């Protein structure tokens, strides 16, 4: 296990998963990321990341109902786990800490 360290994109996916609550499945996550970040996000990348997050135990998944849009296939819904929540909080904490370390004038001068 690589530990609970999150990559940048992993963090984004995890955040979106958390935000979408019950509607978080790969395509929805992909769309949300696209609208939020303004850059095109590929399904393949999201899929791989979700798979990796699940392996790390940060998210868990369950199958939903089959729909005709998906050719009769079920959606796999992701929900964030406690470990995922912890990882997100840890990442936020780290960031906040780093922000706190920056003196206000240091940014102003740029």
């Amino acid at each position: 296990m690589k530990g609970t360290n999150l990559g940048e994109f992993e963090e984004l996916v995890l955040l979106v998963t958390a935000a979408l609550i019950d509607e978080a499945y790969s395509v929805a996550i992909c769309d949300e990321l696209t609208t939020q970040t303004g850059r095109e996000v590929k399904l393949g990348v999201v899929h791989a990341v979700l798979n990796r997050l699940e392996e790390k135990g940060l998210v868990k998944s369950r199958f939903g109902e089959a729909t005709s849009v998906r050719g009769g296939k079920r959606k796999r819904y992701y929900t964030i786990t406690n470990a995922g929540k912890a990882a997100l909080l840890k990442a936020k904490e780290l960031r906040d800490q780093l922000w706190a370390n920056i003196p206000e004038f240091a940014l102003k001068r740029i």
Partner: protein
Amino acid sequence: MKSKEPIHPPRWAVSLLNWYCKPSLIEDLEGDLHEYFVRNVSKRGPAMAKLIYVIDVIKFFRPYTIRKPQFLQTLIHWIMLGSYIKTSGRNIVRNKLASFINIFGLSVSMAVGLLMIAMLYDLNKYDKFNEHHDRIYRVSSNFQYLEHRSREPFATTSLRAANAIKEKIPGVEATAVFHSRFGADYTFNERTVPLSGFWANEAVFDVFSFNLKEGNPQTALKEPFSIVLTETSAAKIFGDEPPLGRQVIMNNDRAYTVTGITKDLPRFSHIKFDLLTSLSTREIVSEDFKDEGAWDNMWSTWVYLLLQPDTDHELLQQNLDTLCEHENKTVDDMVISLATYPMVDIVSGEDQSNQIGPTIGNTVIRIFSGLAVVVILSACFNYTNLSIARTLRRSKEVGIRKTIGALRSHVILQFIVESVVVSLLALVIAFGLFLFLRSHYISLENSFREMLVMDLAPALIGWFIAFAIIVGVLAGAFPALFFSRLNAIQVLKNMSAVPRLKGLTIRKALIVFQYTISIIAITMTTIMYKQYKHYVAFDLGFSTENIVNIRLHGNKAELLQKEFSELAEVQQISKSSIVQSVGNHWGMNVKNPSLPLDSGTAFYNVIDESYIPIHNFKLIAGRNFQPALADSAIEKEVIINEHLLKRFNFGEQDPEKAIGETILVDRKPMTIVGVVKNFSYSKADNARNGKEVMFRYVPSDFRYLNLKIQTNDWIDTYARMEAIWKKFDNVHPFEAKLYNDEIEESFAGLKAAMKVGGFLAFLVIAIASIGLLGMVIFTTETRLKEISIRKVLGASEKGLLFLLSRGFLALLMIAALIAVPITYLFCTQIMMREVGNAAPITMLELFAGVLVVVGIAVLMITSHTLKVSRTNPAEVLKSE
């Protein structure tokens, strides 16, 4: 999203995804892609959406999506393979009887299969030596003459068609013409050699890769009186002298210049010749070349086209059709259509008349392959039967394997490996049998003898091994599926839970199948044997007893006749142009002058005045030819038979009145001087044509001497006749045959079919019998305890015998009930409809085979069950 169009992602991409993707991921991945696809369809159109789908499927091929267990399983399969082979070996050794039956059955049947493969392998090699073999096509013709239509296409066409194609049809690179095979004597410096070949045009060397060693291929066959020899024939004529540019005399007549020497023809060429003579010569030497060049003279010219690489065959056919339409107007009553046939398929393809050389048509190949498949299946069924019969012992093994962790696929593989090992062992024996049978097989039939070599080559051995593996898989497939389906827990808990019932019905069905085939095979052979005997002894309407036909080979008939008549054994001598009733047909156009609109073909034989008495033809009116006529060069008289009399209404069908009437033979008037009783001019099995016959008297046309001989020592007589021949003619071989032998030879095809049928019947009966024996042994073994208890309780030996064998006897009866009607219907409805004068099928032939087969089976069943029923019950029961 309301888009509900019936557009689907490319199916192959979906299957690809399903193939490589882990089962745990496949569902939502496929769903995601589908969702995107639907979205793309409405946004960018179906084509683009499909493309993106495919790209996505390929992009998702990532380490985390690929199924892994499969690799692992294959690995396990490979690791276990060694173990499977080992257990197979042990099983073979443990069950000696079953293994013997299996290996014996498989090896004899596989030997038949190997013969088949070697034959197809040879045939496939034919004509591949030509550089452009895939572009060479032969022109074949179909004709309709009044009501008469050609039954199969002719391999020949007319000279006129060849020229027309050369001039008018686009897309043809070169047109090679082989015209009229002939044999002639070639003389150079006192040395005379008989050779045979064709009249051919110069394009022959453009189309075929005949490899001209000396001479210019462009011009070698251009000028009249040019001749191209093969190396061997050049050596025969010229010995060591350089042949090119020298002259040879043909038939003591004209001189021909040698303009080319080809390498000897490759073994696998369907065209064979000793020499080629330029076609342009034919125009000069032939007496009626105009007739030869007519559109409806389509009997003796073989035309091969070298087509351009990108030829449109439909267009070519259209062009040929237009050509025919145009040319058909030049002749009366005859409608000819042309087609092209690929050269590489000639030896083993469609059956065609007038082939340029020997071929083995696809009818023969289909029949032989069909028989081989039946024999092999029969042996495979033995394997299946015996394997399932051993369910009891093997199912425990399978149960344990499954408990330890073998998957279904492992068990399947194990049983398949076992059967492949058996079939590979059988292959070793089959190969030995193949080497032994090969020469017998080749000598079975004339065309086989001329065409097949069956030399071993690495590729052929590869095919043999592949074949053995296929047979192994075939034989093992059913047992493998059967055993792999067993439930481990049930099998180990309670042996009686083994699903034996299903196996049992299949076993019965297979036995019935084997015996049905056996009975059909032996019955057909008996019927063929009866037909053969019937035809050979057929009453042709004239006597052939003790008559020897000697081929004249162009020698003077009178001189030889005089010499032969001095032999004491020779009683009488006559002369004729053909040997009748062995398949020779010479026809001529005839007409009754009082019926000017009606003309037709009469078949004829040219005879002298002694022919009718020697052969005991019955003159019913008029007289025989008179010897005085021999001096006059003009032919004036004919003798006709009753059919011809009736056909053209000569003398109002009264033989007596017909005498003296005029008949037009090829437009020349002749007088009918005699009428003979009908006889069989064609082979005895040909009742369709050759009925209207006449005898002509043309002294220059004699080609045979017919000697009536009275001797006790044929070998001595033959030697003395040969000595006389040698004095006259050193060039040609002495060809003398007893008339009756010649008739027998003309039914060689039937005889060969009989031999093959007999051999196969023997094989299938042997395989079926030995398989049945195995089944009897195994079933009685499993019922040994039951039998012992029955005996203890007082069952009689007879009763036991009946009990044990009745099941098998019922199966045999079913087989007989299926086989006999099938054979009868096949023979009467299909086989004998085409042939004439067939001997009727009687109950004797139909049931003789059944009796033999059932007799053998009953003998085996009773002998074994008797043995079992005589075992001491105490012996069996005490060990429990």
